[in-house]
């Protein structure tokens, strides 16, 4: 609990909607994203990728490519240091450095179509591409596995034959990279007391985060060994840490300058290009720029896992949930580390269960390594569990929101993943949905309404921020987290609030790795929450310095000085003229030098953010096409600092979830080649596919944040899939258990019933 809570104090900025500080740059084309950097004498880098899903690399011959005019450097797996197995946790998903290094550049074996095998730097992009064609790779093709079932069969080919567990101990060879179990009570016994038990299995396909900006970077290695990287990512410190580790460099040798980032959604919490660009720059002595094509983004960067999930819930006839058990198999891709742990944690989290258990398995297949995607692991789990809850409501003839209310997690309840809940806003969010006019608006034939809930954590993790007062009284804030969706605005608002000054007087910059303390990635819905907390703490520290300086000027005891409305005042003497920021700052040289503070810390304890979505669909019985015709999303934001950006997160998450439910999927042929590696065939929602998405913000303050903020970046993608599928069920009477519910699948199901 913060000692300096803002409860009761009138707020000037929090809750308003000012224009974001980086807005003008972004609407005029001046903002610089990952691919917008250039250096004199720069080379262009391209990556040679595996055409095979699984093969041993016998030999790579780069001689002909090196002879091509304009080619300056080539790296293959032999050129990168061998890295020992070691667990890293800088992103949202567990990463082993050895595996990360092998994913960045294959050693000995390729694990999926698109796996990087070599990288070339040349004077032009065209020459670099031509050089790729001259590299000869001798592959011994191995049998591959493409889904959970074949990967776990007894005689399955092994994706890795030398898998180690977290402690570096070699494991029994299998494609099950990790198994986890969590929960409490004895569900098996409790099921026998249930009046109803629903037990169903679900499948989902791999989907891509779909950020519009492809991965891009520019790296320059100097003759003194110093390295600078300009790139867009969800964390400049993550890029620095991973690149330094993979290339055997000191962290202090590497400076990462964060570009504006054109979307990440979790997919930019790891590295693909940066270590290659640095290695090429080291060899060529020139800066190297690398930009992925969209096809490379699809083939080689992280999709969210395909999954198979079985959920079993038992309840009394009055609707009380007695027990839940879930079995979750998530595809990791060719390297361990899917989001199955988070899926297992969140699957029963919205409800109070006396007996709950989940069993998760992380399974290797010959597909691109999965990566975090917004609330990693949770949307698939929610699809399964919320579909089952919908079944229960139907069987018990209880209103689906009443059923959820009856079993909703609330303060003091033991969560299925361990801790007891502090103050959470799930009940309030459900009630808001139930009372909303959308909930009982009339429907037409072929239309149906679905409701679904979901939760996601607010990670705290490590953050730093610096706050300084400039001579003219303006305030500079430096944050170490890339701003993906308007976090600069909320940080500026919190600082303006603390100082009691105009929002426009606060400048927020995202610092490079050499200019601000360490920050974990932008992810886990944590920036406004955790980095915001650091900005508040640093501002409070600066304010106490300002009071001290004013006390010196006045020659009074600092205890008599307090800060209000942007000024230092003497509490008990109104005759003394208050001193503002500018006045104190201009005189700083005489009172002790520049005024600034750095706050850093590990923000502990995870917060929770709950959402409830209402979705109306209309089904075309002729074509099987499903249109979302009305959508309302309710989200507990704790406190919305900038409501427009909170709404934006809700709307964006809902749209992604709708795409996931209705259309998006990775389609592989038998050889493991992705068949839809472009936006034409991997169909994400466009403006004409969607209605307005009404975002309703509920505010149940988070006790762990000075303004009560809850992170809202991720929870909104959790409920949409089951909301859409439950609506489809209401419209058609058909239970859908496999994603996506694309027109052919819907049509097939409709034909089967009629």
């Amino acid at each position: 609990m913060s000692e300096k809570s803002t409860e009761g104090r009138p707020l000037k900025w929090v809750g308003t909607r000012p224009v974001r500080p980086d807005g003008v740059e972004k609407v005029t084309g001046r903002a610089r994203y990952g691919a917008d950097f250039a250096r004199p004498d720069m080379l262009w880098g391209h990556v040679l990728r595996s055409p095979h899903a699984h093969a041993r690399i016998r030999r790579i011959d780069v001689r002909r490519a090196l002879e091509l005019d304009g080619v300056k450097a080539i790296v293959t797996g032999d050129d990168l240091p061998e890295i020992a197995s070691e667990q890293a946790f800088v992103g949202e998903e567990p990463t082993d450095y050895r595996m990360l290094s092998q994913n960045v550049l294959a050693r000995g074996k390729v694990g999926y179509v698109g796996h990087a095998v070599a990288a070339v730097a040349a004077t032009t992009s065209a020459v670099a591409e031509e050089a790729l064609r001259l590299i000869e790779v001798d592959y011994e093709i191995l049998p591959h596995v493409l889904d959970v079932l074949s990967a776990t069969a007894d005689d399955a080919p092994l994706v890795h034959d030398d898998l180690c567990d977290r402690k570096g101990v070699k494991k029994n060879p299998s494609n099950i990279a990790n198994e986890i179990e969590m929960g409490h009570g004895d569900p098996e016994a409790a099921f026998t007391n249930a009046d109803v038990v629903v037990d169903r299995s679900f499948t989902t396909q791999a989907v891509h985060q779909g950020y519009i900006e492809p991965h891009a970077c520019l790296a320059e290695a100097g003759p003194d060994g110093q390295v600078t990287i300009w790139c867009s990512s969800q964390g400049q410190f993550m890029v620095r840490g991973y690149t330094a580790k993979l290339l055997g460099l000191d962290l202090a040798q590497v400076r990462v300058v964060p570009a504006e980032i054109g979307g990440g959604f979790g997919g930019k919490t790891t590295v693909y290009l940066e270590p290659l660009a640095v290695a090429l720059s080291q060899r060529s002595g020139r800066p190297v720029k690398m930009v992925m094509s969209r096809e490379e983004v699809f083939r080689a960067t992280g999709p969210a896992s395909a999954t198979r999930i079985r959920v079993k819930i038992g309840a009394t006839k009055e609707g009380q949930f007695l027990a839940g058990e879930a079995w979750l198999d998530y595809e990791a891709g060719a390297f361990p580390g899917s989001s199955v742990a988070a899926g297992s944690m969140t699957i029963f989290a919205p409800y109070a269960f006396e007996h709950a258990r989940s069993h998760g398995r992380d399974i290797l297949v010959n597909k691109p390594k999965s990566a975090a995607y917004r609330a990693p692991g949770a949307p698939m789990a929610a699809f399964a569990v919320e579909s089952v809850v919908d079944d229960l409501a139907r069987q018990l003839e209880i209103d689906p929101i009443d059923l959820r209310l009856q079993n909703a997690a609330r303060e003091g309840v033991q969560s299925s993943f361990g801790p007891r809940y502090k103050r959470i806003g799930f009940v309030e969010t459900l009630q808001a949905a139930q009372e909303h006019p959308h909930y009982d608006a009339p429907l037409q034939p072929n239309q149906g309404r679905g409701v679904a809930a979901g939760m996601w954590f607010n990670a705290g993790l490590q953050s730093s921020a610096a706050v300084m007062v400039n001579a003219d009284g303006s305030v500079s804030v430096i944050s170490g987290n890339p701003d993906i969706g308007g976090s600069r605005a909320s940080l500026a608002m919190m600082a303006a609030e603390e100082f009691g000054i105009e929002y426009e007087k606060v400048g927020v910059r995202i610092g490079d790795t050499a200019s601000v303390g360490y920050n974990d990635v932008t992810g886990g819905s944590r920036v406004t929450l955790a980095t915001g907390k650091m900005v508040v703490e640093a501002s409070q520290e600066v304010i106490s310095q300002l009071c001290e300086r004013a006390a010196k000027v006045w020659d009074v005891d600092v205890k008599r000085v307090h800060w209000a409305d942007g000024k230092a005042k003497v509490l008990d003497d109104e005759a003394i003229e208050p001193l503002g920021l500018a006045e104190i700052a201009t005189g700083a040289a005489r009172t002790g030098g520049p005024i600034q503070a750095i706050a850093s810390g590990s923000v502990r304890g995870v917060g929770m953010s709950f959402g409830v979505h209402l979705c109306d669909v209309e089904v075309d019985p002729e074509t099987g096409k499903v249109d979302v015709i009305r959508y309302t999303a309710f989200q507990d934001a704790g406190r919305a600092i900038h409501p427009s950006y909170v709404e934006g997160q809700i709307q964006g998450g809902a749209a992604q979830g709708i795409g996931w439910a209705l259309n998006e999927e990775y389609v592989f042929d038998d050889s493991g080649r992705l068949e839809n590696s472009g936006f034409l065939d991997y169909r994400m929602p466009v403006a004409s596919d969607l209605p307005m998405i009404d975002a309703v913000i509920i505010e149940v303050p988070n006790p762990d944040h000075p303004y009560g903020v809850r992170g809202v970046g991720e929870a909104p993608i959790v409920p949409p899939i089951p909301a859409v599928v439950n609506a489809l069920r209401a419209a058609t009477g058909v239970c859908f258990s496999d994603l996506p519910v694309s027109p052919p699948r819907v049509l097939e199901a409709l034909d089967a019933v009629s």
Partner: protein
Amino acid sequence: MSKRHVTTTIDGEGREFLCEDWQTLLDVLRDVLMKTGTKEGCGTGDCGACSVLLDGRLVCSCLMLAAEAEGRVIETVEGMAEGDRLHPLQQHFLQEAALQCGICTPGFLVAARALLAQNPDPSEREVRFWLAGNLCRCTGYDKIVRAVLAAAAEMRGAEA
């Protein structure tokens, strides 16, 4: 092979450049002229991030050869504001928070400008269908559509 010399007008300025026959207009804008305001999301005509106006017509600059720009007038997002004065579309994109990451924004602004030039009073549905060639993964389009409608209303008001 020697490069081709092209003379064109970009954002109101006479520009000359040299390009390879196979280079797209987007490549030249971004990598030769260093006008990086126009973005590349796919290079295949599917995302609209690279939208520019060619003699007033909306095109994907990733699908057009730079050589075809000879003698034509090209307008990008970088020419939309007049000095410090933002175009009403830019203004409303800011006010309505119609951007999150902002990578799609240049394309949406240029496409919306083309829409309003030919239809100053579009319905929500017309806006949605016109902008269906532009992908945004962050916003769910809600605030983008609202910003375009608000800008259209303001621009009609200004003319009345």
